[in-house]
């Protein structure tokens, strides 16, 4: 595939602007604390990109993306927790050398299924494999039986509820409501320092771009066209000889993998993992990020995640008692007035303006400096 068939100039421009925002504008404009916050928001963008693929293009709405985000995050957290639980660090416990919450729950030896997480390679593998495996099972059960739309959304929501209760109930093995906290180092590298957090921000950005490229490749491939086709005309796709379920399972697994990576990066960036990220509320919020960005646009999804979270943080700082009004109104506004989100506003309102500007004076070099999201 040549570059031009992989990416049009317009698309390349969109990615370049996003790269500039993530790697130049934000790091230069923000202090370390805010940049670190944006690092956290970026981890949500992984989920939003996945949602743009299988919700926007595939028409499958999952209200359980937090499950995959959480599983990825927990896999990473388990590794980090084991690394942090050296016998010296945990000398105060009745059983030194195991994670603190296990000790609090009278568990005296590391459970067997925790053992593999001593290996970083295994943890990295699990970050993707565990969410994908679950997505595969869910997808296989649901899509081959043609469960879709609202039903799928509600069943995934129930799965989020189940996993939350399970994690909270099995606190000896999972840390319960507290989550897995107090993570310190990654292979000896202190992830708590400002420098580490800044580094992680850039790692995050780079990974996000890798994920975006994968998403873009899928979107441009025949599979991407098929997804859109099966969203609107599932029967026609079947009678063109495609096994619709297998494509849906695939794209659902891709979304789960993205979410898992995001979750793992979240754990690294924030320093702990908690069941509050697995449940229904965060799962719905993740859908909102995607909707605000424009459910059809993978770049829009990234801006959506950044913008909504930024708005949430700043609104809650300035108006702690009122920010829910703002957030609620934002959801409604996006659905009612801008169903295609920021990407829609950009392509329907702003882009034509710019094009007109260009056409009027060809040598006027006022390229749009501002990102679509701003």
């Amino acid at each position, binding site marked *: 595939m040549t570059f031009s068939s992989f990416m049009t100039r317009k698309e390349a421009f969109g990615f370049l602007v996003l790269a500039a925002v993530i790697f130049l504008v934000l790091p230069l404009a923000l202090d370390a604390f805010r940049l670190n916050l944006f690092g956290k928001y970026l981890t949500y963008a992984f989920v939003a990109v996945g949602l743009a693929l299988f919700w926007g293009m595939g028409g499958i*709405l999952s*209200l359980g993306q937090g499950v995959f985000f959480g599983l990825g995050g927990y896999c990473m957290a388990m590794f980090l927790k084991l690394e942090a639980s050296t016998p010296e660090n945990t000398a105060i416990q009745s059983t030194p050398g195991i994670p603190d919450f296990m000790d609090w729950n009278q568990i005296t030896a590391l459970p067997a299924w925790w053992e593999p997480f001593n290996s970083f390679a295994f943890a990295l593998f699990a970050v993707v494999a565990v969410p994908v495996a679950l997505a595969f099972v869910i997808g296989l*059960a*649901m899509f081959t*039986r*043609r*469960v879709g*739309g*609202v*039903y799928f*959304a*509600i*069943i995934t*929501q*129930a*799965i989020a*509820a*189940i996993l939350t*209760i*399970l994690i*909270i*109930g099995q606190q000896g093995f999972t840390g319960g409501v507290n989550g897995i906290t107090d993570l310190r180092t990654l292979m000896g590298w202190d992830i708590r320092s400002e420098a580490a957090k800044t580094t992680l921000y850039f790692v995050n950005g780079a990974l996000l771009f890798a994920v975006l490229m994968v998403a873009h490749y899928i979107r441009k491939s025949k599979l991407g066209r098929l997804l859109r086709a099966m969203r609107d005309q599932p029967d026609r796709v079947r009678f063109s000889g495609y096994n619709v379920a297998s494509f849906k399972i695939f794209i659902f697994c891709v979304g789960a993998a993205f979410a898992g990576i995001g979750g793992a990066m979240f754990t690294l960036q924030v320093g702990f993992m908690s069941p509050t990220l697995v449940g*229904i*509320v965060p799962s*719905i919020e993740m*859908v*909102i990020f995607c*909707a605000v960005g424009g459910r059809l646009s993978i770049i829009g999804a990234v801006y959506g995640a950044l913008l909504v979270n930024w708005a949430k943080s700043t609104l809650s700082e300035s108006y702690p*008692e*009122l920010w*829910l*009004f703002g*957030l*609620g*109104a*934002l*959801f*409604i506004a*996006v*659905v*009612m007035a801008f*169903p295609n989100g920021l990407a829609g506003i950009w392509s329907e309102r702003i882009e034509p303006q710019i094009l007109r500007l260009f056409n009027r004076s060809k040598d006027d070099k006022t390229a749009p400096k501002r990102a679509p999201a701003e």
Partner: protein
Amino acid sequence: MFSDYSWADLGAIFAMQGFAGLTLFAVFVLMALGLAIIFGQMGVINLAHGEFMILGAYVTYLVSTFFAEYMPALFSLYFFVAMFLAFLASGALGLLVEWALIRHLYKRPLDTLLATWGLSLILQQTYRSVFGAREVGVSLPDWMMGSLPLTDLIEVPINGIFVMILAIGISTAVYVMLFRSNWGRQVRAINQNRDMASAVGINAEWTDRLTFGIGCGVAGVAGSAFTMIGSTGPTSGQLYIVDTFLIVVFGGTASILGTIASAFSISQAQSIMEFFLSGSMAKVLTLLVVVGILMLRPQGLFSMKLRK
């Protein structure tokens, strides 16, 4: 585990456990009926359903305060007034919401989900701003909080009976309205073929609005009833939403009877498992079984077989 109990003990416990299951069943039915109307008949996913219920609970709180203040003599009867007002308040809010939001989204069911989630955030914060972040205590007439001793061992909570009667009453009313009244015929006609229904002179717009309003009103009554057994705070509504949706989906969306059957099976399963397992695991298992069955039978327990 039962070896050290007498048969009389066990019999009494099983009787009461059966009753507990029935109470839970009634609670589930109340929770799900309003949603079954809205989701089943209109295809709208109302994630603010819990907040409509809590509105009913707050109305009950206000009425109880009012009666305690101004008409203490009639306090024991205030609950009926409260339920009626709860129906009106939630129903009116429902009409408003339908007009402002839902009617623009009929063709996009998944978007109703997002919009109503936003609405639920706004309602929660409204409750918090108006009533404060703390739970409010709804004082109940004494007669509702007692129990009827049937034998020496068996005692039946009156509020359980009350909830059951209410569940039966409202189910019957909804059933009669849907299948016997003119409105019901219109609702079902619109559900089946919107264009044709409009063509034969049914005012689809008003029927939709009324349907949504009635669904929300029923939620309000449920919320009012739940002040007997649950808490009333700005976020209490969220507790019910997943269970409620599962019940409706499990029952098969187009069927009120299905909703009732599904409420019955889920409540019995949960109440039996809770007796033998720890509460958390019982909940997980119940949800797992429901999701498992839904995977095998995605159309739910009851569904209309239609020629596609």
